[in-house]
C-alpha cells in the first residue's frame, strides 16, 4: 500500500510552517518514510532558496537618495554641493546614511560639528554617527552660545582651539514668532552658510549650505554671491516676516536672552 502522498500545496505550507501542529507532525513522519516525498520537498525548498538568494543582494546597494529625500522633511535638508541635496535625519538611521567623500564630507563634518558641538577630526570620525543628530542644537554647545550672544557682523572663534569661526549676518523674525539668525561658519577652507531659529537660547538648525565664499568672514563683509547665497536667500525670503532686525533691536534681544 502506498504511503499517503502530500500535495505541493501541503509541502509548500510545510516549508513556511503554516500548517497546524498535527499536520506538521504528520508530514515529518511521512518525510522520514518516503524518500521521494523528501526529494520533492527539497526541490521546492531549493527553488525558494534560489529566489531568496537571487534578490537578497539589493540590500547591499545604497538606497537611491531621491526616494530618501521624499521622506525627509525639507526644512532639515542640507545642501552641501550646488544642486546636490543630502538629507539630514533627525533620528538614528545608520543603514540609510549616504556615503560622502572629499570636500563634501568635510562640509558635512563641519555641519555635524556645529550641530553636535564637536569639531575637527572628532567630527570627521563621528560622521558615521551623524545619523543620530537632532536638528536641535544642544543649549550649551559653542554654536548655541555664539548665536545667543554675538551680534551680527561680529565674527568669533568657537570651540576652544577648534579653528571654527562663526559670523552671524542677519536676524529676522519668522511667521511663528521665532527669531532666526543667518550666519556663516568656517573651518579652514570649508565654509557653510546657515540659518538657525529658536527662542530663549534653544536653537534649531533650519538649513545649511556649503559655500566657497567665506573670505568675507575675516572682516565681517560678504563678498561675491555664490549659489549657496541664493539658496539661503530664497529660504530667508520665504520665512521672514517684516524687515530684518536692526542693530539695536538685535542687541535688545541678545540682552534679554532671546
Amino acid at each position, binding site marked *: 500500500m502506498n504511503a499517503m502522498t502530500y500535495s505541493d500545496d501541503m509541502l*509548500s505550507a510545510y*516549508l513556511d510552517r503554516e500548517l497546524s501542529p498535527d499536520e506538521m507532525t504528520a508530514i515529518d513522519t511521512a518525510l522520514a518514510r518516503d524518500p521521494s516525498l523528501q526529494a520533492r520537498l527539497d526541490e521546492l525548498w531549493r527553488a525558494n532558496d534560489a529566489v531568496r538568494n*537571487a534578490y537578497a543582494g539589493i540590500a547591499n546597494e545604497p538606497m537611491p537618495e531621491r526616494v530618501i529625500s*521624499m521622506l525627509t522633511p525639507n526644512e532639515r535638508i542640507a545642501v552641501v554641493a550646488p544642486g546636490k541635496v543630502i538629507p539630514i535625519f533627525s533620528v538614528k538611521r545608520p543603514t540609510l546614511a549616504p556615503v560622502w567623500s572629499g570636500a563634501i564630507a568635510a562640509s558635512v563634518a563641519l555641519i555635524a560639528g556645529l550641530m553636535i558641538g564637536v569639531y575637527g577630526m572628532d567630527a570627521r570620525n563621528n560622521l558615521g554617527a551623524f545619523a543620530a543628530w537632532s536638528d536641535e542644537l544642544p543649549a550649551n554647545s559653542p554654536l548655541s552660545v555664539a548665536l545667543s550672544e554675538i551680534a551680527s557682523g561680529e565674527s568669533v572663534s568657537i570651540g576652544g582651539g577648534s579653528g571654527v569661526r562663526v559670523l552671524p549676518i542677519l536676524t529676522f523674525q519668522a511667521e511663528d514668532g521665532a527669531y532666526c539668525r543667518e550666519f556663516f561658519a568656517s573651518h579652514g577652507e570649508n565654509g557653510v552658510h546657515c540659518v538657525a531659529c529658536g527662542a530663549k537660547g534653544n536653537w534649531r538648525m533650519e538649513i545649511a549650505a556649503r559655500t566657497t565664499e567665506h573670505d568675507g568672514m575675516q572682516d565681517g563683509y560678504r563678498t561675491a554671491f555664490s549659489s549657496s547665497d541664493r539658496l539661503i536667500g530664497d529660504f530667508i525670503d520665504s520665512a521672514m516676516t517684516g524687515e530684518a532686525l536692526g542693530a539695536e533691536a538685535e542687541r535688545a534681544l541678545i540682552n534679554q536672552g532671546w
Partner: protein
Amino acid sequence: MVEKSGAFEEELLELLPRLRRFCFGLTGARHDGDDLMQMTVERLLTKRPPDDANLAKWMFRVCRNIWIDEIRARGVRRTEEINEDTTMPAINGEKAVLDKILLAEVNAAMDNLPDEYRIVLSLVALDGCSYKAASDALEIPIGTVMSRLARARGALATMLAMQRQSSDHAASAPLLH
C-alpha cells in the same frame, strides 16, 4: 514655520528596505525596482492610508497595484544585461559573477510565472510575510496564497532544473566546425 517630521514619513522610511526588496523581486532589475519603489512612495505620500491602517500591508498592496496596472499593462520592461554596470567594486570577483548568474537564472524563471504568482512568491519568500499577512495585503483568500505559492515554487523548480540541464548539455556538446 517648521513642520514636524510626520510619523508617517518616518515609518515609511523604516519600511523602505522591505519595499525595495519586494520591488526587486517583482521586476528582477535594480533600476526598474527602484523606479517602482519611487512610484509607490509617491502614491503613498499623495494618497495617504487611514491612520489606523497597517502601513506595511498598505505599502505592498499599493506597490502590487502599480506594478500590475501601470508597468505590466504597458508592457514596460527594460532588458537588463548580465554585465550591467553596478558601480560597486567587485570585492569578491567570483562570488559576484556567480551572484549575477543566479539572478539571471532566477529572473528567467520568474519572468515565466504569471504575475500573481510572482507577487505572492516575492511577498512570502522575500519578505517573509505570513500567509495571513499576505492574504490581507493582497486581498485574496489564504487558500489562494497557499496554492499560488506552491504552484510558483513547483514551476520554478522545474524551470531551474531545465536550465541547469540545458547548460550542462551546452557544456558537453561537441564543437561544430
